[in-house]
């Protein structure tokens, strides 16, 4: 006869438990927290990399990661530490998934362009901290800046092409209180734009520009505040100041040689390139004082005539990043072609400016003496690109050529460290492969989160299931809480993250439906009985309701040659009750979130009967959510 043990008897006894615990303790003893280890393997034991990145089903991540999507024209949203992709925010490119670029409002946002090149996202700030209102991104290709509202994660404004500015790479850098989004031109062109000049006359005819894009503090509306004319250097990356450097901003450049062809060789001849040191408060004041001239509708400052707004600072050859630390005193610039990071002391920069400690000038702009303001050159390794800070006195520099991240100690340094700056390099970790940018949450604020670093690598080289020759990019999550950096996880994205921002999840509380009460859309209708079809001449205007599981009206009659305008309101007020409207063979694909009203407009070019249907699976009878657009031929 089989006997059943009471449940507690069938559990492992204390001896068995102890036996299981001992090896676990021994293992964890080998890996003190923060130690570089290979425990990122398959072990899910507490404290392992797997356990630290595990966000169980139904649980939520601790941080948002906003990646730029490069030439996809989008922003990707992932969670940290899971690295799970959560959402894609279309900005400069149509995105059928959310109907972006198909309705009249987003078509107008995109303007004449079907894509953009998103490089550097920047969160809005108040008093040097993220305030969770907006995310700004730049378009390197078409000279634009966009504002994403973090209330609903939607692109709300695209400004540009910015006059007199070309190749908007040196952007988006937000000032301490979001007074400005700062922008600098990567590609110089003859100004004003539209003017022809021979590229052989580059040095004479072409110009670069640094622009202050003013942000309306109430609603975030952007406009061009001022511009500063510069020589045709290729402005690259920048950052804004705070603390002692409050009111200032910095950009690196490559090609201070002002070459115009075979830049790979011609622009890499000098040992140094120039960084721009810009007093953006003085620039704003100069415009108010009437010291600017208008070019293409924008106030432009000639820096030779308005002293105090622009200085040049020599930095190591072909630099990329120039990053202000959370205190605002230390500025790290790295030259891709020299294996060092130059650390400048802003207090010395200020002193050098005050006592005119210049080595000369370029087109009337003073050049600050490098030796007077340099704190040290740190031999971090090969191909240093970009530096981030953890707020605990450490800096992290990406090493493109070495495929690594170097961790080093910010000043002040001891005499011994100063004598041999190799000593301030604290750690190095390999990444896979060829890291471009890296991000530490809040590095550009006064108080970085300092928990995770995400390495955005340019090459993934088959570290994933093979998908043929077009390969994704890889991003790697690194724990920076310990003395040693620790690789936790890697994820793959579509092309191509250039930079990212990390935001604490509880810093924002996005809405999940557009409240009926707050709807101000002039064409919104909330009741099926207000649905209508009105003809005015050759224009047929429809006010339509979308609700589970029908469109009202679900039949629209028009004539060939008519102009059809449909305003659709999704009257649902339930989270995730999204509907879409696709019209077969009419290139119509509009998606409406709960409570949203969108307008689509199309010219009816061919007779026939065209089914329309809901694209976004909404309910058990989603498939039945359909109707007909009947088009009578021209008689």
């Amino acid at each position, binding site marked *: 006869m089989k006997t059943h043990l009471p449940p507690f008897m069938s559990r492992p006894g204390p001896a068995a438990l102890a036996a299981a615990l001992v090896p676990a303790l021994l293992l964890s003893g080998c890996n003190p927290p923060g130690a570089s280890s290979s425990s990122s393997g398959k072990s899910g034991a507490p404290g392992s990399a797997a356990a630290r990145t595990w966000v169980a089903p139904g649980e939520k991540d601790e941080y948002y990661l906003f990646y730029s999507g490069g030439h996809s024209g989008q922003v990707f949203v992932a969670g940290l530490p899971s690295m799970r992709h959560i959402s894609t925010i279309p900005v400069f490119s149509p995105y059928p998934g959310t109907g972006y670029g198909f309705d009249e409002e987003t078509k107008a946002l995109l303007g004449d362009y079907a894509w953009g090149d998103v490089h550097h996202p920047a969160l809005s700030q108040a008093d040097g901290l993220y305030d969770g209102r907006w995310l700004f991104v730049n378009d390197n290709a078409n000279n634009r800046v966009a504002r994403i509202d973090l209330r609903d994660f939607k692109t709300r404004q695209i400004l540009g092409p910015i006059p007199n500015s070309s190749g908007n790479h040196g952007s988006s850098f937000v000032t301490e209180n979001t007074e400005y989004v700062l922008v600098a031109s990567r590609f110089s062109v003859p100004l004003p734009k539209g003017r022809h000049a021979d590229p052989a006359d580059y040095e004479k005819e072409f110009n670069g520009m640094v622009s202050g894009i003013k942000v309306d503090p109430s609603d975030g509306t952007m406009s061009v505040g001022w511009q500063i004319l510069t020589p045709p250097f290729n402005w690259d990356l920048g950052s804004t100041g705070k603390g002692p450097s409050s009111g200032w901003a910095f950009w690196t450049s490559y090609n201070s040689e002002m070459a115009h062809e075979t830049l790979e060789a011609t622009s890499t001849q000098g040992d140094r390139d120039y960084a721009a040191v810009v007093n953006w408060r003085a620039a704003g004041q100069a415009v108010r004082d009437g010291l600017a001239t208008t070019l293409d509708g924008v106030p432009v400052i000639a820096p030779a005539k308005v002293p105090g707004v622009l200085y040049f600072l020599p930095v190591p050859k072909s630099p990329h990043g120039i990053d202000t630390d959370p205190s605002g005193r230390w500025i790290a610039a790295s030259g891709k072609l020299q294996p060092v990071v130059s650390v400048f002391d802003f207090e010395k920069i200020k002193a050098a400016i005050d006592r005119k400690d210049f080595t000369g000038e370029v087109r009337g702009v003073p050049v600050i003496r490098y030796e007077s303001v340099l704190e040290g050159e740190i031999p971090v390794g090969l191909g240093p690109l970009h530096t981030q800070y953890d707020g605990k006195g450490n800096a992290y520099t990406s090493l493109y050529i070495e495929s690594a991240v170097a961790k080093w100690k910010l000043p002040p340094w001891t005499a011994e460290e100063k004598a041999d700056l190799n000593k301030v390099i604290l750690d190095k970790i390999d990444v896979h492969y060829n890291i471009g940018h890296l991000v530490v949450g809040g590095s550009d604020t006064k108080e970085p989160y300092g928990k995770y670093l995400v390495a955005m690598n340019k090459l993934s080289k088959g570290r994933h299931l093979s998908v043929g020759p077009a390969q994704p990019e890889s991003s790697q999550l690194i724990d920076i809480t310990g003395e040693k950096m620790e690789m936790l996880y890697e994820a793959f994205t579509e092309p191509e993250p250039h930079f990212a921002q990390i935001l604490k999840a509880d810093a924002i509380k996005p809405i999940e439906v557009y*409240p009926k009460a707050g709807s101000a859309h002039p064409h919104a209708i909330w009741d099926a009985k207000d649905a209508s079809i009105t003809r005015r001449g050759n224009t047929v205007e429809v006010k339509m309701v979308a*609700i*589970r*599981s029908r469109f009202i009206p679900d039949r629209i009659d028009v004539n060939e040659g008519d102009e059809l305008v449909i305003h659709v309101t999704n009257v*649902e*007020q*339930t989270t995730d009750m999204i509907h879409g409207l696709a019209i077969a063979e009419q290139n119509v694909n509009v998606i409406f979130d709960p409570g949203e009203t969108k307008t689509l407009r199309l010219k009816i070019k061919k007779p026939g009967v065209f089914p329309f249907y809901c694209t976004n699976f909404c309910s*058990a*009878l989603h498939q*039945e959510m359909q109707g007909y657009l009947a088009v009578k031929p021209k008689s």
Partner: protein
Amino acid sequence: MIKTLFSRQYRFLRRPLGLASRLLLLAAAAALVGAVFLPLWKIHLVAPQYREGLALRIYAHKLVGGNGGQDLHEINTLNHYIGMKPLAQADFAEMTWLPFAFGVFGLLALRAAFIGRMQSLVDLGVLFVYFTAFSLGNFYLRLYNYGHQLDPRAPMTIEPFTPVMFGSQKIANFIQTSLPQSGALCLALVPVLVAAAMWCSRGETLPES
């Protein structure tokens, strides 16, 4: 014999009310006022995709959906699939007079508190119990009709049902829970307070004897 019984009954009904009884009647009037403003009943629906649930609160004078009123729209949107009539406050004629009915009972309680005798308590108690039974019956009938008068052209055909009035039941993917709320408790308190008032004055002597 019968005459004696009636005469004893008559003497009982003419008994005056003591202070404690009068205070209890004031409390009953207050409870009735409370019932006008507090929710009487709550219907709650929970399904896998509605984890926080959809709530519907029934007041004497209004129907209020949870989540800022949104849950009522949602319940109606869902109910249209089974052909249930949309729940609309306008269809509840009783919501126009129910607060007045409570008011009338409140006034009766006040009247009894100030000038009443035992017989006013009996009137109040009997009328109120009758009224409550009628209202609960009416409520049940409402629920029955909503669950049975289903549009035969609805997308989904389901067996007609009666939404549960007390407790929980499963309807398709939903668990429906229906329970009285603070307003209903106030109403339940009224007969208890009246009975207590009668009990307290059971020994009062007739003034003329």
